[in-house]
């Protein structure tokens, strides 16, 4: 029941070309049976200002997080969400969003925790669709309720927790935040609201590769050769490596997780969603300040 894949030349170079669709492909396939388009943004009102015709909205903050526990929703809540959004277990889901697909990649990663098999990103996201003058509508999307099954979330393969990261020190670890966040510089002044962490800096041994380096000016993913140069040649990451990526709450690192997993084809990449908001405040975990990765202290 999957909708055919986008066979663009650009995508053919990636390890898993079936994980991306172009704006042209989406325009041609809108309304096709088996396809559900999802908008997932940082800005919670953007969808309401106009969205791709027929797209449904899934908000990472309010839809995918457990309301009381710092965790994602469980299988039952995910099934209910899918049922309400008209998504079947075998639907082809194409996700797009603002900010070069930060939040779209985050939603895709959460879909992957539930093993939804055919979930893709719109290369270039919302901005590219808009820049090309394609149609937006404010018309409400009415979804036919589905019978999506309850599937238990599986955190084992692509999600890392704090203790996993502690045990991982010495293997490839990527900090995808800005250089200022990485080094621990702070631009704060009296009476300014503060980020909710007690310490500034990065996890020992983490390499700084800001997530945005994988995106071109128009928000599309950089071509395969450039991504190889960035992560393989630049950061020394190889096939077979066990890699963990993190940021502040796991959203920017989802973007990097998508690049390493689906575009470069690494088999063992985990996203540490606790990220700096947890690590920077956790008791008895080491941090490093300044521009160098630093070393793992033996404990």
């Amino acid at each position, binding site marked *: 029941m999957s909708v055919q894949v986008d066979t663009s030349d650009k995508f053919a170079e990636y390890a898993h070309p079936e994980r991306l669709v172009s704006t042209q492909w989406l325009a041609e396939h809108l309304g096709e049976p088996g396809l559900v388009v999802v908008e997932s943004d940082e800005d*919670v009102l953007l969808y*309401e*200002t106009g969205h791709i015709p027929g797209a449904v909205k899934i908000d990472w*903050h*309010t839809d995918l997080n457990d309301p009381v526990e710092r965790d994602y929703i469980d299988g039952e809540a995910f099934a209910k969400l899918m049922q309400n959004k008209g998504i079947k277990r075998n639907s082809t889901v194409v996700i797009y969003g603002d*900010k070069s697909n930060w939040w779209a990649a985050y939603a895709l990663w959460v879909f992957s925790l539930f093993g939804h098999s055919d979930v893709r990103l719109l290369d270039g996201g919302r901005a590219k669709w808009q820049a090309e003058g394609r149609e937006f509508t404010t018309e409400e999307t009415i979804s036919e309720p589905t019978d999506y099954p309850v599937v238990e979330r599986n955190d084992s393969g692509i999600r890392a927790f704090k203790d996993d990261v502690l045990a991982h020190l010495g293997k490839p670890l990527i900090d995808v935040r800005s250089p200022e966040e990485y080094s621990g510089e702070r631009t704060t002044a009296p009476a300014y609201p503060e980020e909710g962490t007690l310490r500034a800096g990065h996890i020992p041994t983490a390499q700084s590769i800001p997530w945005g380096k994988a995106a071109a000016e128009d928000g599309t993913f950089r071509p395969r050769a450039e991504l190889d140069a960035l992560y393989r040649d630049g950061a020394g990451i190889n096939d077979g490596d066990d890699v963990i990526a993190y940021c502040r709450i796991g959203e920017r690192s989802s973007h990097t997780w998508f690049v390493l997993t689906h575009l470069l084809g690494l088999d063992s990449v985990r996203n540490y969603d606790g990220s700096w908001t947890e690590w920077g405040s956790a008791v008895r975990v080491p941090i490093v300040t300044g521009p160098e990765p630093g070393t793992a202290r033996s404990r």
Partner: protein
Amino acid sequence: MNADTLPPALAEIRAEFLALEQKERLLLLLEFSNELPDLPARYSEHPDLFERVEECQAPVYLFTEVDDDNVVHLFVTAPPEAPTTRGFASILVQGLDGLRVEEVLAVPDDYPNTIGLAAAISPLRLRGMSALLGRAKRQVRERRDSSAGAGSVR
């Protein structure tokens, strides 16, 4: 929080939000977003006067004026792709503009957390509105203190 200490415009905006269901609160925020006034010409040509609000991930700039009658005017600019921030800014412009300096400084810092938006948009996002309010108050305080002159206490 005591509603009596809240300026009438902010109290009215809060009542408007609290009277609605969660989903409708989003649409009301969108209405505010669409009502954010354009900058007057004297400012639209002078972005240098404005302060960048770092806590908002979109490029958002804020500027306050205190006129000779001690009345505050607030100007905020935010791009169309940041409708939530525009909504926050618009609430504050409508709620604070035309108040006296003391009234602005007396607005509770936690006002953004009291208008029923936490569940609709997530508490984390409300930080952007707290940042706007905090900066507006700080600018007003600085302008008051600098115009008070050398003989002022503190």
